C-alpha cells in the first residue's frame, strides 16, 4: 500500500458530514447511541466492547519465534482466554494487567480518512491506559484496543463505558484496495505471523532451498540425489504425499495413478496444497540444512515455494526419445510394457496439454525457473553445471 499523508484533524461539522454521507463513502460508526455526547469538537468517543482477550499463564513459552508457524499460532491461542461479556458487565483490570478488547462500535473507514484511537484523558487519569493505535483507511471492524492499568490499583471496567476516542484526518492520496479488508469484529491475536520479514529473519541464518522441476525422466531425481550425496542437502518431494496416498488407497504408484492423484488432491484442496503441506518441514529442516525439493508440477506450487526468499528454481529438459529410454531403464520392473506412444502421451499431459488449472503444468513451471538446463549427454555434465550454479548461489545467499 502506498504511504499516505495526514492533513488537519476533522472537527465536529466535518465529522457529522462524514457520518451522514451516502453509504458507499460514509464514515461508519455504528451504533452511535448518543451522538451529542460522543461527537466532540474533534473526536468521536467510543465504548468498550463485549469481549476481552486476557493473557493467561501456561506451561510453554508464549512467543517463541524459533517454532514452526503453526506452533506459534497455537501458543498464541493457548496463552489467551476469551471472555464474552454483556453490556453493563464488569471486569476487574488488576494493577499493570494487560488485556485486549475492541470498541463496542463497528467502524468503517472510507479510503480517504485515517485516524488514531487513544484513551480519554478522564480514564487515563483514573489509571486506564488505552495504547494509541492507528486506524487505517478502509478499515472495517471494531477497533482493536490494548488496555493497561497503569496505576498500582485495580480498576473496574464496565462494558459500554466510553473509554477511548477516535481522531480522524483526511488522507491526501487515497488508494483503494482491490482485495476486501478482513472484518475485525472481535479482539484478535497478535498478527505477528503476518509479518513477512519474520520468515525472512528466520531464513537469514538458514541455508537455501533449491526446487527442481523438469520433464518426465529428464534427470530431476538424479540431480536431487547428487545434491544430497555430494552437498549434504536434505531432499523433500511433493510426490511423497502422493506415494503415501497411493499406498493408502492400495494403488500401484504408476505414472497414470500419480498424475490422477495429484490432480485430485489439488482440485479438492487448492492448487498449492502439496507445497503448503511441506511448509512446516521446510521451516524446521532449513534451520539445519540446505534443501532440495522435487515433484513440482503446478504453477501455484512454484508460487507457494517462492514465498521463501531463499528459494531458487532450476529446470531440466531433454529430447523426449532420450527420456523414454532413460525412463525404461529406471522403471523396468514397475512399467516394463510402456510404449513410446504411451510415454509421449503421459509427457504431454505432464507438460500441461489439456490439463485443468489444478493439473500438471510442468512447461509453465519451467518458464518460472531461475536457471534451465538441457540434458543431452551424460548426467555428470549436468552435475558440473549444477555445482557451478551452487557456487554462484553461495555467493549470493550466504
Amino acid at each position, binding site marked *: 500500500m502506498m504511504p499516505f499523508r495526514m492533513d488537519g484533524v476533522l472537527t465536529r461539522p466535518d465529522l457529522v458530514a462524514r457520518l451522514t454521507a451516502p453509504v458507499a463513502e460514509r464514515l461508519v460508526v455504528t451504533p452511535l447511541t448518543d451522538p451529542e455526547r460522543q461527537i466532540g469538537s474533534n473526536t468521536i468517543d467510543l465504548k468498550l466492547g463485549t*469481549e476481552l482477550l486476557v493473557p493467561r499463564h501456561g506451561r510453554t513459552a508464549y512467543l517463541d519465534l524459533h517454532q514452526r508457524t503453526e506452533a506459534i499460532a497455537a501458543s498464541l491461542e493457548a496463552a489467551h482466554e476469551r471472555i464474552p461479556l454483556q453490556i453493563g458487565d464488569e471486569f476487574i483490570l488488576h494493577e499493570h494487567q494487560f488485556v485486549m478488547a475492541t470498541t463496542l462500535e463497528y467502524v468503517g473507514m472510507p479510503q480517504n480518512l485515517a485516524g488514531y484511537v487513544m484513551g480519554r484523558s478522564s480514564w487515563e487519569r483514573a489509571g486506564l491506559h488505552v495504547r494509541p493505535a492507528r486506524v487505517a483507511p478502509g478499515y472495517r471492524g471494531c477497533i482493536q484496543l490494548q488496555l493497561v492499568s497503569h496505576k498500582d490499583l485495580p480498576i473496574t471496567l464496565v462494558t459500554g463505558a466510553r473509554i477511548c476516542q477516535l481522531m480522524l484526518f483526511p488522507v491526501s492520496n487515497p488508494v483503494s484496495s482491490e482485495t476486501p479488508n478482513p472484518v475485525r469484529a472481535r479482539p484478535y491475536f497478535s498478527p505477528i505471523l503476518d509479518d513477512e520479514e519474520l520468515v525472512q529473519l528466520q531464513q537469514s541464518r538458514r541455508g537455501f532451498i533449491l526446487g527442481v522441476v523438469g520433464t518426465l525422466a529428464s534427470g530431476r531425481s538424479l540431480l536431487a540425489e547428487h545434491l544430497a550425496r555430494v552437498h549434504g542437502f536434505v531432499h523433500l518431494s511433493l510426490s511423497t504425499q502422493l506415494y503415501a496416498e497411493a499406498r493408502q488407497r492400495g494403488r500401484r504408484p504408476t505414472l497414470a495413478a500419480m498424475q490422477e492423484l495429484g490432480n485430485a488432491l489439488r482440485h479438492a484442496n487448492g492448487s498449492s496444497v502439496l507445497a503448503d503441506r511441506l511448509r512446516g518441514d521446510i521451516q524446521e529442516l532449513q534451520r539445519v540444512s540446505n534443501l532440495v525439493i522435487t515433484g513440482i508440477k503446478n504453477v501455484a506450487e512454484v508460487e507457494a515455494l517462492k514465498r521463501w526468499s531463499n528459494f531458487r528454481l532450476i529446470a531440466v529438459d531433454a529430447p523426449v526419445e532420450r527420456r523414454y529410454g532413460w525412463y525404461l531403464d529406471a522403471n523396468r520392473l514397475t512399467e516394463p510394457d510402456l510404449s513410446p506412444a504411451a510415454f509421449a502421451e503421459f509427457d504431454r499431459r505432464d507438460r500441461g496439454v489439456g490439463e485443468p488449472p489444478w493439473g500438471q503444468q510442468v512447461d509453465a513451471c519451467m518458464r518460472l525457473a531461475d536457471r534451465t538446463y538441457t540434458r543431452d549427454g551424460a548426467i555428470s555434465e549436468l552435475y558440473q553445471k549444477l555445482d557451478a550454479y551452487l557456487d554462484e548461489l553461495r555467493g549470493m545467499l550466504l
Partner: protein
Amino acid sequence: MAPATAHLDVDYLASAAIHQALTLGDSLRELRAREYATQTPLILLDLLEGIVDDVRDQLLELTAGRPLEAARRMELRGLGQALDQVTELSEYVVRCADADVPWGLVYPLELFCRQLTPESRMIIYPAWRHGYTYGELMGTLYRIMRSVRELPEGEFLPGYPRFLAVFSFPPIQGPNILQNAAWGHEIGHHLDTVFNVSAEVLKAPAFVQRAGGVLTAAQVEAPRAARAPQGQFDPNYERVSHLTPIVKILGGWVAELVADIFSVHVFGPASLFAFSEIPSALAWSEPSWSHPPSWLRIAAMLDELRYLGYDALLDAAQSTGHRAAMCAAVGERLATLAQVAARGAVEPATGRFFASITGVFAGARGEMASHVRGVVRDWACRAERIAGDVFELVERLDNVIPPCEVDLPGELVGRATTLAAIVNAGWFYRIWRSLDRAPRDGTEARELHAELARLNELVLKAIELSAAKRQLTEVGGGVDDAL
C-alpha cells in the same frame, strides 16, 4: 444365614449411598466456589444441593436403626437413583460456565425465552454429540424432588423459575449464525413446553377425527413397523418402543411441526433456509419415529410463509435494480423448496404405516398453524413488516457494515430493526450473492468459505450491536420491539 446376608447387603449399599451423597454435596459446593458470573448455574446448584441434602438426611434416617430391613431396599434404591440423576444434571452447571458462546448467539435465545415466560431461565452450551437440542430442566428437577420429598402434584417450586430451558448447538456451527436460525425450531419446542400447543392440537376435535379415521387400520401395522421400519434399524425406536407407537409418533410429529411453524412465524424465510441447509436434513427425507419427513416440514413452513405474505414480497416484477435481482434469487430458492415439498406429497411414503400417518398431517397443517399463531400472534414476521428493513440492511452488508440498524438519510442515528430482519437480510444476501453455490474446486470452496465467514461475522455482530443499542437507548432494554 440368608436374612443376615441380605441385611448386610442393604447396610453396605446404604453406607455407599451416604458416602455418595456426602461426596456429591462437597462437589457441588466446590462448583459454587468457582464464582460463576451468571445466575442460572447458581439456581441450578441451589436445587441440586437441596435434593442431595434431602437424600442424605433420609439415608441417615433410614440407617439409624441398623441393621436395615431388607424390605426397605426399594426405598434405598429410589434415593440412590435420585443421587445418580443429580450427578447427571450437575454437568449442566459446568456446561453453562465453560461454554464460550458469543453474546450474539445467546441474545436471540434469551430474548425469546424471556418473552415467552419472563420468569424463564436458560442454559446454552455447545454439544459435540447431540447437535441442536432442547430440554426443560425444571420439570425434571421437580420429578426428582417429588421422589425424595413430599410435594403437591402439578405445582412448581416456589421461589424458583418456572422453566429452565436448555439448548445445545453443534460447536462447529457456533460462528455460523445464519445456520443457527435453525434455533427458531428449538425455541418452538420451548413454546410448546410453556403453552402446551402440541397437546391442544392433538385433542382438537378435527385432528382427533382425522387421525382416528385414518389410523385405525394402521394400528395393526404399528408393532411390526416399529421393529423394522423399511427393513432397517431405526435408532429412535429405542426411545419410543415402550410407548404406544402411533400415539407417540403423532405427538412427536405434531411437536416437530409446531416448532417448525413457530420458527417460520417468528423468523420468516431464514428458518426455512437454515433447515434446508442442515446436512442431516437429507437423511430426514424418510419419516422416522420422532420426526416427520423433511418434505412435510418444508411444506408446513412454506404454508406459513405464504400466510405471512412472502409471495408478494418476492415478486421480482414489482421491484427494480438490486432489489429485483434479490427477490428473483430468493423467490427461486423458495420455488425449489416448494418442488421438494410437492414431490414428497405425491410420492408414496415408506410403508403403509407411515403413509397413513403422513395422510393425517396433510390436512392438519392449517390447524397446527392456527394454534401457533394464537399464542405468538404479536411476533409474526410478516413480509410487509420486515420488507422495508431487509433490503436496506442488505445494502449495509454489501458495504461490509453490520446490518444492526436501518440508515436514515442525513441522520446520525439509524432506526432500530428487528432480529428477524437482521437474520433474513443475512440469508437474502447469501442467496443473492450465490455464496452457498456448489464450488467448482477446493480453491473456490475456500474462497466461498471465507466470504461466508465474513458474512456470518457481520450478522453476528449486528445482532449484538442491535441489542446493545436497545439496551443503551431504550427503556427496559427495548426487548418488547426487538422481535
